[in-house]
């Protein structure tokens, strides 16, 4: 078991956003989490990564047997949790390559591996760059600064390739991408998939799931997972729209 979320409740500024999430992810699996805007998908991703604005009011999250919620964000990353941000922040003055070398060596250290020197890092990085077809020029620029929307998302997937996480959480990585960029991003994820790692793909649209085929599909609404199924569920959702799921919920029980 890679990830086990039990009855997770989260609020921000006193308002409950997640109202009891249950989700188990095993090695080798791809889970898609879908839902309308405001259903709590991105909150779930942020809470998993350890963003401090949220208050966990109940439940637990186990990651590779450890209490994930007790760890600071960097420890979570070193343990092998990777969040591909929906809006990757621009950090002027920090070069992408230097940033990645620092991050990779921290993670390697945590795993008991020798740090890579500049030369080894460079060739390792080059190899990973091919995966997402990223331009060398991009790694010389300050982190995400002036990147287009597509470049930022590609950069996230490139970082995921480099840092080799056990669990990749993709927060609406497909949003704002044209079809070519979408293919590259999805292709990257497919190449990274092994029997030892897992992915949680958060998306609003079914479109991405044409390229990344999920083992499970979960539908989130109002802070809960209200329906789970296989990839057919996503197709059905695409056909019938979110109203199909939510209308049952709106009628009083």
């Amino acid at each position, binding site marked *: 078991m890679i990830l086990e979320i039990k009855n997770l409740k989260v609020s921000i500024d006193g308002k409950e956003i997640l109202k009891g999430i249950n989700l188990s992810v095993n090695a080798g699996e791809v889970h898609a989490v879908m839902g309308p805007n405001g259903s709590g998908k991105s909150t779930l991703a942020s809470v998993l990564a350890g963003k401090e604005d949220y208050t966990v009011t109940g439940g637990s999250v186990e990651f590779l047997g450890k209490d994930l919620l007790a760890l*600071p*964000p*960097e420890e979570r*990353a070193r343990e092998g949790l990777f*969040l591909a*941000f929906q809006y990757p*922040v621009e950090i*002027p003055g*920090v070069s992408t390559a230097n940033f990645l070398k620092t991050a990779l060596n921290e993670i390697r250290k945590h795993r008991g591996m020798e740090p890579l020197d500049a030369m080894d890092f460079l060739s390792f990085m080059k190899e990973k760059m091919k995966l997402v077809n990223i331009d060398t020029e991009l790694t010389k620029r300050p982190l995400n600064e002036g990147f287009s929307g597509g470049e930022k998302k590609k950069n996230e997937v490139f970082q995921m390739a480099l*840092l080799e996480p056990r669990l990749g959480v993709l927060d609406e990585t497909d949003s704002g991408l044209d079809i070519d960029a979408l293919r590259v991003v999805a292709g990257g994820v497919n190449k990274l998939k092994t029997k030892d790692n897992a992915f949680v793909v958060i998306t609003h649209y079914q479109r991405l799931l044409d390229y990344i085929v999920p083992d499970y599909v979960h539908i989130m609404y109002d802070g809960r997972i209200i329906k789970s199924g296989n990839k057919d569920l996503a197709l059905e959702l695409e056909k019938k729209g979110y109203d199909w799921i939510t209308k049952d919920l709106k009628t009083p029980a």
Partner: protein
Amino acid sequence: MQAVLAHPDIKEQFASFPDLLPSDAFKGVRKQAMNRFLSEGLPATRDEEWKYTDLSGIAELRYTSGRAAELTELNRSQITASLFDEQEYHRLVFVNGFFSGELSSPAALPGGVIVSDIASVAEKHPALLEKYFYSSPNSLHALNTALTAGGMFLSVPDGVSVSKPIQALFFNTSPDATAIFPKNIILAGNKSRVHIVQQYASTEKNISFTNAVTDVSLGKNAEMLLYKTEALSPASFLTDSCIVMQQHGSRFSSLVFTMGGQLVRNNLGITLEGEQCETAMHGLYLVPGTGHTDNHTFVDHASPSCHSNELYKGIIGGKGTAVFNGKIMVRKDAQKTSAFQSNKNILLSDEGTVNSKPQLEIFADDVKCSHGATIGQLDEEELFYLRARGIGEDAAREMLLNAFASSVVDTIQIASFREYMAGRLQEYLPFLRK
């Protein structure tokens, strides 16, 4: 260390300070300057220009001139360690305010270039200096004129390009309170080119008050880099005035890098006398827990079609205080001016203080001018992003502080000096978090 007197009169002290300039040529003007200082004393905080910087600490010490200070072997090795590679730089060293021929090594210079000590120029060619012992614009400047005993004299004739940068190091070693008054004169002729690194440094235990004046003039189409570092002990005071005059088409670029010191005040005043001048002012101040750093800059657009660009950044730790006061003046006929100014501060602690006062005074309409100032902290989103990639919190903070400061360091156009400064920055950052 000498006894700290309860109320030693600073005016009295300096009135009876020895005159150590080996020349009688400037007696008159020096006397006048001393009288000016005696009538005004040190600037007080009721003066708007000194509103945020209190110099009264300077008056609490009993000073001697640096002549008496002994140079130990340790001091000598500390100074030697601060010198740049002889192959790459011309080096000029002043110890406790006095020129050290032994430690200096001006290599062969192109025709007509003079690099020397003011004291020896005053002794041998006083006429060269006449213009620079003028009636002072303020009391600190007057005090410098009255008591200077040395400083850098650099003169580059028309059309000459000095290929190697010049390092002028002012190193203070005395653990007894010393008062030092470097007067530097830098003259760049028409179409000349020269790069200078001016450094104020001291031993960790040094106690000193350095009151420096640097007069800079750039001839037509001259090009100059003037980089300054100030790395003084926690018990040192530095007040520095740099006065720059630029003629038509000249290009000037300055950098002031301050780390440490008890109190540092930098005045940088640039007058764009000729048209089509360019001037760049960069500053980086790292203010430790007990420090006070004040940068006052004034760029006077007195002629049309000039361009000025200013970026000052600061990181303030502990109980440190940073002051920035930047003024852009665009005179009535200085049309087609473009002037930009930016001051950015990061406050690391709850006890630190930042006072920023950017000013625009515009009297011409066809101009592009802007200034901006920010005071804040590291961006939480950025910090989270770095941590979410496995970088520890301290390391992430350092990385972001480095990135913040590097936009100033990156402007340095002398590669070896840029690398040196990047290293100093790296070394100094952890010190700010104490």
